[in-house]
């Protein structure tokens, strides 16, 4: 009988569609940290796009699906502060008045974690075995910072990567302008916010921009591609799982 | 005009769901050390000229010095019925309200150490507008009248407020143009505070 913790990996829709490597990186890191990882097949989305748009009916339908699929695990781990935040902070809001689902939402919230903070705080991982001889700057997503309380952990883990140097952004608190559907509804404002963040990144000594949220990274890389800027963009999980040799985001 | 009053109050009452309880009284971090020194330090940082004097006998010379330092004539305005009984040889004293380019000498009933603030309850001999009219206010304060917090000033007033209680923590200023601070927007451009130890 295994005494390893059973972890349900919530892959996220963006990782599933655009960058599966992040999912495989997460599995590798979790297994290295002594977990049994499962990936429930019924997962699709956490429901955040619907929730943020005020489409509460859709959001709660999707949330029930997630709760039912994941509540049996010891831990639920998400390679994203944004989706993690939806499950951990907003499911209880969504079911505030639902006597049947509120306790289940609370229970799931209590055991849902962003990937890097799970490794450091729950599995006591202090370092990884990986090589990445480049200078990186770190983009802390708003949800990681403010909903999941993740700040030191990416630095602890990335700092342990062989050859990696961190050169921090000057402004680590201002939103990059993704914001889900905001990026589509108010493109010019989103563009300005991206440009400010990109200028900050390009002003560091880093040749790589990394972070824990794929949505932000897709938005920033997409904007850089339009501008002709060549900063390499990778999800932090990939670097930590020693997959830094693969093509970066948006590279052929 | 009872229509508006009744409707507004009904509107509020009809919608109240929860009445939260009266919270515990908040206790602010206390400043250490001598109150008058704490006060002087806080106010000096806010572009005021704060001087610690040994006794009331030193006040006239200090007033003369402040005026000289501002290239102003040896002339001040002191409110009629002011409790300040100062002998100011060589200094002309007017009892008229000060103009926008003149100096006033005022008595300070209380001061607050936490924020470096002068507390002026308006009253006989203490016209409130005199803290705003002149270009220079010279405030005379006894060190023993410096209290720790605003709450202490309110306690001293016994829960009865004057028509106006002015709390002054520096000369007048504005950052309204390009977020750059300039002194002397409407109120005094300079504030000098003479803190008398005994």
């Amino acid at each position: 009988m295994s005494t390893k913790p059973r972890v349900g990996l919530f892959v996220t829709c963006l990782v599933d569609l655009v960058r599966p490597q992040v999912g495989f990186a997460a599995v590798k890191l979790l297994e290295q940290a002594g977990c049994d990882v499962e990936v429930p097949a019924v997962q699709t989305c956490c429901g955040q796009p619907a929730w943020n748009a005020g489409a509460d009916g859709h959001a709660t339908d999707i949330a029930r699906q997630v709760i039912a699929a994941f509540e049996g695990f010891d831990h639920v781990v998400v390679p994203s502060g944004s989706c993690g935040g939806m499950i951990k902070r907003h499911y209880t809001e969504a079911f505030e008045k639902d006597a049947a689902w509120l306790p289940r939402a609370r229970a799931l919230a209590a055991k849902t974690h962003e990937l890097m903070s799970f490794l450091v705080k729950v599995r006591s991982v202090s370092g990884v075995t990986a090589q990445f001889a480049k200078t990186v700057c770190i983009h802390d997503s708003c949800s990681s910072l403010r909903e999941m309380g993740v700040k030191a952990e990416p630095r602890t883990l990335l700092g342990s990567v062989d050859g990696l140097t961190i050169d921090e952004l000057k402004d680590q608190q201002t939103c990059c302008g993704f914001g889900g559907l905001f990026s589509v509804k108010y493109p010019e404002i989103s563009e300005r916010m991206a440009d400010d963040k990109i200028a900050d990144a390009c002003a560091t000594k880093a040749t790589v921009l990394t972070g824990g949220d794929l949505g932000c990274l897709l938005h920033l890389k997409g904007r850089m591609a339009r501008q002709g800027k060549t900063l390499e963009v990778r999800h932090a999980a990939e670097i930590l799982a020693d997959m830094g040799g693969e093509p970066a985001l948006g590279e052929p | 005009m009872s229509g508006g009053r009744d409707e507004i109050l009904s509107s509020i009452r009809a919608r109240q769901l929860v009445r939260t309880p009266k919270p515990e009284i908040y206790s602010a971090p206390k400043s250490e050390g001598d109150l008058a020194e704490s006060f002087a330090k806080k106010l000096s940082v806010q572009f005021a000229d704060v001087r610690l004097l040994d006794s009331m006998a030193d006040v006239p010379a200090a007033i003369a010095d402040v005026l000289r330092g501002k290239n102003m004539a040896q002339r001040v305005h002191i409110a009629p019925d002011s409790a300040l009984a100062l002998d100011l040889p060589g200094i002309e004293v007017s009892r008229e309200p000060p103009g926008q380019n003149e100096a006033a000498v005022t008595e300070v009933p209380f001061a607050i150490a936490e924020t470096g603030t002068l507390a002026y309850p308006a009253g006989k001999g203490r016209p409130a507008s005199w803290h705003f009219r002149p270009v220079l206010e010279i405030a005379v304060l006894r060190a023993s009248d410096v209290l720790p917090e605003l709450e202490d000033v309110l306690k001293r007033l016994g829960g009865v407020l004057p028509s106006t209680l002015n709390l002054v923590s520096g000369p007048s200023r504005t950052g309204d143009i390009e977020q750059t601070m300039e002194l002397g927007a409407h109120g005094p451009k300079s504030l000098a505070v003479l803190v008398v130890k005994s």
Partner: protein
Amino acid sequence: MNLDPKNFPQAAREALTDPLLRPALGRLKTHFGAGRAAAVARYGDFEALREAGKAIRDYAVTHMDELLTQFEESVVARGGTVHWARDAAEARALILKVLQDAGAKTVTKGKSMVTEEIALNPFLEANGIVPVETDLGEYIVQLRKEPPSHIIAPAFHLSKEQVAETFFASHTGLDPKRSLVERNALVQEARAVLRRSFESADAGITGANFLSAKEGAAIIVTNEGNGDLTRLLPRTHIVVTGIEKVVADMTDVSVLLRLLPRSATGQPISTYVSVMAGKRGADESDGPAAFHVVLVDNGRSKLIGTEAQDVLRCIRCSACINHCPIYGAVGGHAYGATYMGPIGAALNPGVMGVENAAHHANASTFCGRCAEVCPVKIPLPKIMRHWRAVEHAKGLAPKSITAGLGVWAFAAKRPGLYRFGASVMAWFLRSIGRRGTVHALPVMQGWFAVRDFPVPQGKTFQAQWRARK
């Protein structure tokens, strides 16, 4: 000049290309943003202070009827008068009557966002009364016939050259060859010009940062001292303020006074804090002979008992505005309303109607910085989301977004269909991508207007994971 929240997208686009606005917004961040951070660091347990402020304001909002009644009793006991205005029109009419009864022709004004909200100045002018703004920033925008662009720094968007230009155009009695290159010269000129207004005004109108129920006092904070000259020199003083400003007593005010200036500009205390408890005493030589308070509802009471109730805790410090990246990109005028930034986004849909102010609630990434800095812990993004839900439920959201979400949700609730759809999408995007990105699609045009989309790696994670098992 945008005066309509419905116009926000176009106004925002124009603001983004305004060359003078960008450095001005940068200055706001450096001064107010850094100022607050430094003040918070120096304070010690700032979190405990925020909790205390929240509790005081929660008590006040949930006892608003009792406190307003008590406030009125206290004011009347000291010889003042309280007026109750259900809406903007009633407020304007009440104020006009007081001024007309007092025979007032010129009125000086301390800073009051509520008087902006009720559009008081044009109404007074139409009735033959001249209102003169005395807060330097408000005075400048009044001369320029612009609305304020920030709730505490109304003219932050202007350069000193623009202010000089305005003074040359408006202060026609002065020597046209004088120098107004220095900021100090501008301030000194305004001081001299406005001193005449202060001294000749028949009445003074101020706002109130707080109302203290027990003592019947209105409290204002300024750095200039203009509010005091507005109150103290004329015969009549009128306070115009929102009903939600009331708190229990001066002890509560003392706590909030620790929060407000630090959150606004980073100061431990504003230069002038004035506790105004009625008309002049019998033995006093200055101060108003008549004291009036106009309490304005204008949509506030109907937020009580709703998901937006917490917005009534607001003490109008502007911290949310100063830290908002959207405001930081487009400034205040783009919002087309008295209250802008996150507090505007949380308040306006409630008081102006969701159909009118939907953009305010939608133009947010929910980054949460506003809620993080709010001194009274208003969950601003949560309230904005509530307005989006109201908008969605009323069928007012843009059709393309609602339709797109509908399709997405349909698939998301059907895992088999979703996995198939995602696989097709991944394959499709990969096949149309060039050099690692997709440049355009007939959908999501907002994305592709300014960005490429990085091409998917290949098969979806789920497809690959199933294949491995």
